[in-house]
């Protein structure tokens, strides 16, 4: 629990993201941001892609940020971070920065700004090897514009652009595996985390920021509005994503896969689908084959991941 004390201490000082912003009740984004930033010792600069986090925290002339923060556009956050990181190296080389100053560049983007429109800039920045942490708060759709489907939206989910009707059961395609795409860039640290599992997330942030190079965190983050659940059930909903193995918690460090959490027993996928309006139609009897398909794919993906995690030490004490 010492980690909780550290997080609380960092939050108790000048919180990097303070209250009073306009993010919704039950939104997982501020939880992710505060856990990430409070887990980093030393100064940070935040680069933010266009999205809920940006819009809800910086309505001019107010700001919820107590750390340097820069937003340029939707698709280019990783490129902007590349520029800041390069500037820091250039300035250090000619002794134009305070000696003790080593600013960690942290980028926050939603799944749209990561999986879809932001993918090219992210890919370039990962390949070039800039030292920065890219955090995707993945809430599985374009929530800021009113819940449209993204490359991260799961199969079968209803969104305003993948609606349910006589001719449609929601999104017809499987979600993109962005974590695997990041791993494919041979960066030294990639991890999947969830807003509900703060301890796991915090540890991953520490590992991610310890390496000299890019790191990518894909954090499942709830959206009560878009997912259709009560704000007070956020934690439970996210837990079910992890416990059903829909969203495994793992990391890939220098190419080594490791589960960071292993459910005692894998819960049936209905535990994840139930309680979210976007999946309500899937639980109707006539859609049973869709649920079976989802269950089959989750199981298959989980087995593939287990095979990759040859050295699963998730149960060892840390």
């Amino acid at each position, binding site marked *: 629990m010492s980690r909780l004390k550290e997080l609380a201490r960092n939050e108790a000082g000048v919180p990097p993201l303070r209250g009073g912003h306009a993010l919704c009740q039950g939104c997982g984004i501020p939880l992710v941001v505060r856990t990430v930033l409070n887990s980093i010792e030393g*100064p*940070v*600069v935040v*680069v933010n892609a266009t999205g809920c986090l*940006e*819009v809800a925290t*910086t*309505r*001019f*002339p107010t*700001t919820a*940020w*107590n*750390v*340097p*923060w*820069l*937003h*340029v*556009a939707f*698709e*280019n956050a*990783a*490129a*902007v*971070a*590349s*520029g*800041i*990181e*390069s*500037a*820091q*190296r*250039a*300035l250090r*080389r*000619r002794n*134009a*920065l305070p000696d003790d*100053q080593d*600013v960690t560049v942290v980028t926050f983007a939603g799944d749209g700004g990561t999986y879809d429109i932001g993918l*090219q*800039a992210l*890919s*370039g*920045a990962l*390949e*070039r090897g800039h030292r920065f942490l890219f955090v995707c708060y993945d809430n599985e759709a374009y929530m800021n514009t009113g819940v449209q489907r993204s490359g991260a939206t799961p199969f079968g989910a209803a969104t305003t652009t993948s609606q349910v009707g006589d001719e449609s059961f929601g999104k017809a395609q499987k979600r993109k595996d962005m974590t695997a795409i990041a791993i494919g860039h041979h960066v030294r640290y990639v991890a999947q985390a969830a807003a509900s599992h703060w301890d796991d997330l915090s540890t991953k942030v520490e590992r991610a920021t310890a390496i000299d190079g890019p790191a990518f965190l894909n954090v499942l983050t709830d959206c009560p509005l878009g997912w259709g659940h009560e704000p007070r059930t956020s934690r439970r909903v996210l837990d079910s994503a992890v416990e059903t193995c829909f969203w495994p918690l793992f990391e890939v460090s220098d190419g080594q896969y490791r589960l960071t959490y292993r459910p005692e027993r894998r819960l049936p996928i209905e535990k994840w689908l139930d309680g979210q309006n976007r999946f309500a139609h899937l639980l109707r009897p006539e859609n049973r084959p869709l649920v079976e398909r989802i269950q089959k794919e989750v199981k298959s993906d989980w087995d593939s991941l287990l095979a990759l995690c040859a050295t699963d030490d998730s149960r060892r004490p840390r």
Partner: protein
Amino acid sequence: MNGPRLLTGGEAVAHAMRQAKPDVVPAYPITPQTPIIQAFAKFVASGATHAELIDVESEHSALSAAIGSALAGARTMTATSSQGLALMTEVVYIAASLRAPIVMAVGNRALSGPINIHCDHSDSMLVRDSGVIQLFAENAQEAYELILLATRLAEHPDVLLPVLVCLDGFTITHGAEPVTLLDDEVAAAFVGEYRIPHSVLDVRDPATYGPFAMPDYYYELRRAQAAASAAALEVFPSIAAELEPLCGRRYAPIEQYRLEGAERVLVALGSTCGTARDVVDELRAAGEAAGLLELTSYRPFPSRLVAAALAGADRVLVLDRADSPGGTPPLAAELAACLYGSGIELESHVYGLGGREIHPADLHEIFAGHAADYVGLRGDACRG
């Protein structure tokens, strides 16, 4: 000062960049800009200058990285052309709004489609309303000196805007000319140290950059940006006055060539002005009252200077190396606004799209009032 050496415009720009010592250069290859970043990369590889080269994966990311770098307190330069500028247009607007003093060379090239690699000014015109400053060079020597001047202009505390130095693709970027460079120390002293009022890396005094502005503030912020653009015209002469004793040329937002008593005045941008000078000389030698008005600063547009310079003219002949299908070509529209109510006649001609050559004979036709709206168009093609 050194003697002249044979350099292409692209090489001359790279030398100016070397002397201005940017900390960071994010860039993406595109013809005809590529020789600039190649020559600069060679300087970095040889140790002739130090810079972080960011070989980005697109022009959109080039300017995005440039914003991050410039706002983090690092002098930042880049270069692009045509589709590259089109791709980064979204970010060009934001760079101006964030008041990022980035210097960017633009090797002017036609926009697709059809795809073409040769010169016209369509790419520059695409970002004319973005809030960035755009300076047009007539030749490689000017391209070199304008990069140095642009660095000062961009970073001036009253301005703090991106400055695009536009040089005609191939004609200037690839054409070799005798170019005289300043001594490195002289150039470095002229551009000085990079200073911005506040850095995004200032963790002791953290600030929020690029916030969300709704109808209650957006309008005021846009208006402030327009004021910064106007300020560039105010500070231009003093910066040019400092450069003059170093290079022997006095730059100004407009360049007036033989306008004394000129009745017919050609108005143009870029390398065509070199051809136009010769034509004006020939006409003057023949006793005709011809003159040339060259716009070095297209943005901000020096309306008052232009109106004053043209006050004595009878007829103004505007040459646009860009078209506006269904509308008025951009330079002609600008001149029409300048001359409104003056009684001066205005003729608009489009020329040279996609690298079509313009010859002295074409300019003679224009001065004589015999030229078509679209100068140099093949008569045998494009029949509907």
